[in-house]
């Protein structure tokens, strides 16, 4: 079932892209996370949020077999069976965080999968219903040296974990809860959580850390938000995340993805709203850092009609061994074709929606397309996350609820030279 395509893009370098569907989880309708573990191997979450009673399984790329291994089912590992009648342990969203110190890959589950006998799940509706309410985000400690789940704990009662980050030096995990949008800190040694406060209503999709052990995310109104553990306070900074000022106000310009550059100075990030914006942020410059707008990540379009969140998208930010930033951005022929109610223009394929792999040189900020994600059926534009394994291959997770099973892409770069400074291990989901 693997399919490899070779893309040369507009020039050098090029990449050979291979599709790995989640064959061991045919109901997997999304892959919300892909991450390198502390062992340098790549892990992915095979999620199932559309099927009543669906659960998530953890996959890992096996280089020897050139295939995915299915490691375990989150529901089984955390004693929360799909037949419980409650919302299920259906996915790991941006919830992987590796601990090189311990050799553990931490992962926190998220909600949205309906109970087995319900068509849908909304946490606001079932919050006070003990028969239906999600038990809570399960934090799983997976030992990558022994392939065993060492322990699990309820990280966020009743809530899901949108995104996770680890301060490995201090033994702390940070989690963003859904739906209440609270930032939590979890002390791994003490197995104790603490609610640090509410951010807003729109979940930011990533948390990242800086060299001062501060945790960064974003507010509903497109400002960077910082939790400084030494001050024990969440503060909304003056840093405004870029947006398209022709029609946007900054509302909903929340962080989608962020990755640390090999230089140890910059964080490269992208927003979670139509017309996603690339920018980079230097958190330790001055008190609250400095943002540089790198411009739109996707093409222009007719702004008179609201854009589908799953169409105009950019994600999968990852630094390659060559020191360049790689990411996946949507491209399309007709972004609205899916919703144009004409007999001749129906279906996902008709809008010509594609996922283009871009390479951005941090020194020059020049960017060029180097490949396209292609699977045998359906479109491949929505990349959730990117990861770099120990061998230098890039991996991108795919979300596309229309075609099951979902899976991941491997992108093998050709014609690149390794930079002196390797990219750091990503410490957040």
């Amino acid at each position, binding site marked *: 079932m693997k399919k490899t395509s070779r893309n040369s893009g507009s020039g050098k370098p090029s990449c050979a892209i291979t599709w790995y569907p989640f064959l061991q989880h045919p109901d997997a309708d999304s892959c919300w996370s892909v991450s390198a573990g502390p062992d340098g191997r790549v892990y992915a979450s095979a999620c199932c949020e559309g*099927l*009543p*009673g669906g659960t998530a399984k953890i996959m890992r790329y096996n280089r020897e077999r050139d295939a995915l291994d299915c490691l375990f089912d989150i529901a089984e590992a955390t*004693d*929360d*069976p799909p*037949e*419980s*009648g*409650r919302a299920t342990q259906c996915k790991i969203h941006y919830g992987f965080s590796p601990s090189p110190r311990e050799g553990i890959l931490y992962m926190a589950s998220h909600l949205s999968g*309906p*109970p*087995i*006998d*319900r*068509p*849908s*799940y*909304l*946490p*606001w*509706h*079932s*919050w*006070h219903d*003990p*028969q*239906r309410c999600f*038990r*809570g985000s399960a934090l799983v400690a997976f030992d990558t040296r022994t392939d065993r789940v060492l322990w699990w704990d309820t990280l966020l009662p*009743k809530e899901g974990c949108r995104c996770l980050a680890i301060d490995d030096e201090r033994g702390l995990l940070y989690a963003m809860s859904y*739906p*209440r*949008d609270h930032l939590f800190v979890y002390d791994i040694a003490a197995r104790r959580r603490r609610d640090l*406060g*509410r*951010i*807003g*209503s729109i979940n930011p999709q990533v948390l990242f850390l800086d060299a001062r052990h501060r945790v960064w995310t974003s507010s*509903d109104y497109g400002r960077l938000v910082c939790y400084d553990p030494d001050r024990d*306070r*969440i503060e*909304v900074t003056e840093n405004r995340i870029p947006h398209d000022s022709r029609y946007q106000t900054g*509302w909903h310009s929340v962080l989608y993805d962020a990755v640390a550059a090999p230089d140890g100075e910059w964080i490269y990030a992208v927003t979670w709203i139509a017309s996603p914006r690339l920018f980079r942020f230097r958190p330790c410059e001055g008190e609250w850092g400095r943002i540089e707008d790198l411009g739109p990540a996707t093409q222009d379009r007719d702004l008179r009609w609201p854009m589908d969140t799953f169409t105009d998208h950019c994600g999968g930010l990852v630094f390659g061994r060559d020191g360049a930033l790689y990411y996946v951005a949507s491209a399309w022929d007709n972004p609205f074709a899916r919703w144009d109610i004409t007999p001749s223009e129906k279906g996902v394929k008709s809008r010509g929606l594609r996922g283009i792999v871009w390479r951005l040189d941090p020194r020059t900020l020049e960017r060029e397309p180097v490949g396209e994600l292609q699977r045998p059926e359906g479109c491949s534009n929505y990349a959730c996350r990117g990861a770099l394994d120990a061998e230098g291959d890039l991996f991108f997770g795919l979300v596309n609820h229309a075609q099951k099973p979902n899976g991941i892409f491997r992108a093998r770069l050709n014609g690149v030279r390794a930079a002196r400074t390797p990219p750091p291990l990503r410490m957040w989901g």
Partner: protein
Amino acid sequence: MKTPATATSRRLTRNDPNWEALLREIQLGAFVHEGYFVAFPMCFPGVTLPIPRDESRIIALTTDADGMVYGATTGRAHHVFFARFPGTSGIVLDLKWPDPAARCPALCCGPKHVLFAANPAAGGGRLLRRARQGRPTDLLHEWSFAKHPFEPVEDATYSAPILDLAATADRRFAVGATRDEVFVYDFAAECVVERRSTASAGRLCALGDGTVLGFDGTGALWRCRPAERALDAAVVKLPSSFGDPAAAHWAADRAGRFVYVISGSGTLFRLENGALAEKARFTVTPVTTAAATQDGRLFAFAGEGIAHFHIYDPRANSLRELGAAVSVFERRRYGYAFAAAAPGVSGEIFFGEDDDLGHLWLYFPAILPPAENGSR
């Protein structure tokens, strides 16, 4: 919650005849589906900085005779604020509370000034007053704001924190209480005119006849008649199951005609003919705040984490859940925790959000069709 809740192995499919009905129930039932909420930020939008996100938990609200709103917040520091929405206004104004370390648990409005309870961090309580904020002019075009000073009320310091304040229906007096004292403030004389040693607990409620009710902490209500400088002990006996009065919430319409109290365990009572009549029970608890409209409907938030909004309609004697609060006007925001409420003059209710980045929420209840006999 380690064991299965409602273990079943039957997976619902899209072909199931119940699919659409269940989907509708879940999607339409999740958020308030009767009336509308508007979440307003704690600032003059685009003109002033909002009250900081971790200092904006609203814990007290009141309205004056014109419907202008005054309130108090808590968090890392405390604030008091003014708000107004009619005409060309639309503002929350931070009034610059003189002691940000002092919590303001209650405030009430007289004809010319506002009375504030201040509980300093060092302990005890005291009263402050401030002139009512003038009506802002055209807040779409140009504006100026008088900044009135807060003044301490003479001989109004207390050894225990002030629990609550309530202005009488005629706004001639305010009645306040600590755990061991009840006092009367005369708005015209601008001083405390009566202090009485009496046990008290929890919140107060002003009635339409100019009196104020309070819990005595021993299973009964006292009644203060400020115009007569009188305090009547044990005028209403509480049911034995009432529980801790500190956890109870009052709700009365602006005229004081419909008076409700909800116990900490979620039992709703209406004050009828000088006694408490049980009307309903909340299945979700605790109730965190409640208010009543002039037609007697009671609206209340209940539940921890994500509070669910409820309505009690005396015409049908029914208590119903209306879902979680959400605003799509002014601010697109979910509302999860509320701790204060005050009825406005046009049928709206103000709710104070007790959360980080708290907002002042306006609720516009649905207009009811006339009753079958033509009366309301």
